[in-house]
């Protein structure tokens, strides 16, 4: 155990490099494939994907229906799929119902539509508190909801990854789907913010 203890205190960069070397030598990983995966998540997979899904749902009632019925399939229609996207359930915010997403045990998050989670989503404080006092936590994050708005907190501990379909802001009826995409934020799709009109 002494070895393990001191070993775990080595800088994580060194342990990571050591592990990568050993796995490469054993043919368990291919650094080229791995580089491709990292580049993909650093540059391509992000909330823009989810914003496209939301804007389409706002402008295409038939797509919205499919999205709420089978999130994974409707999201795949736009070409977004992959790890952590196998079972995405979409919930719709309305003037009277507000949905917010958390992973209480770790960091489950719908990667194909939102990319990797931000720090606050992984933070122990958010994970513990948003379940117990969602209204307070949302208010601290800048979202004040009226007392008569019902808040539902969705915990992504099972296989399910949740995506919030935010309310389309008033006064955006004249905007095109493309213009709407740029309004949709990651925070709105997690449910800790609303989409603001431009």
């Amino acid at each position, binding site marked *: 155990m002494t*070895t*393990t203890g*001191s*070993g*775990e205190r*080595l*800088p*994580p*960069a*060194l*342990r*990571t*490099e*050591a*592990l*990568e*070397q*050993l*796995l490469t030598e*054993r043919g*368990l*990983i*291919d*650094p080229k*494939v*791995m*580089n*491709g*995966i*990292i*580049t993909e*998540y*650093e*540059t391509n*997979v*992000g*909330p*823009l994907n989810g914003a496209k899904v939301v804007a389409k749902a706002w402008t295409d009632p038939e797509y919205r229906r499919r999205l709420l019925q089978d999130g994974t399939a409707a999201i795949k229609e736009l070409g977004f799929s992959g*790890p*952590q996207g196998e079972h995405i359930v979409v919930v719709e915010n309305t003037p009277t119902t507000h949905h917010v997403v958390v992973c209480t*045990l*770790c*960091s*489950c998050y719908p990667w194909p539509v939102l*990319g*990797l989670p*931000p*720090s606050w989503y*992984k*933070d*122990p404080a958010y994970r513990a508190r948003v379940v117990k006092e969602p209204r307070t936590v949302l208010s601290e994050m800048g979202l004040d909801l009226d007392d008569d708005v019902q808040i539902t907190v969705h915990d992504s501990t099972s*296989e399910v990854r949740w995506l919030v379909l935010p309310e389309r802001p008033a006064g955006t009826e004249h905007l095109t789907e493309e213009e709407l995409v740029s309004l949709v934020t*990651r925070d709105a799709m997690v449910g800790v913010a609303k989409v603001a009109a431009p």
Partner: protein
Amino acid sequence: MTAPLDIEGPAAPPRSNGELVFSEPWESRAFGMAVSLYEAGAFTWPQFQAALIARIAAWEATPARDEPYPYYRLWLAALEDVLVGLCAVSTDEVTARAQALAQRPPGHDHRDDPGHEHHHARDRSQS
């Protein structure tokens, strides 16, 4: 990150309130390893997730936590847990290799920046 980053353009990394996806290159390597191994079928995601949950729970149960939440350190530990469980590597092997890497003389650290190859790959893709 040592490579110049495209901040605003189409190749800009996804940011959240100015926050990069990975704060240090090794975090991206630890992330990439887990996803590569999962995609190659080395383990299922629920297996990895259970190990991650256990590491997070253990850290949260530690009484005096004065360090910032070390998410990717726990991620890396969980990955090691799973791989040790599969007998793909042993903890002592990883420790020994890491200690050997720590002995490299300064200047002989071409491979020290684990993002090195990766950034070249990105540079090429942009040209």
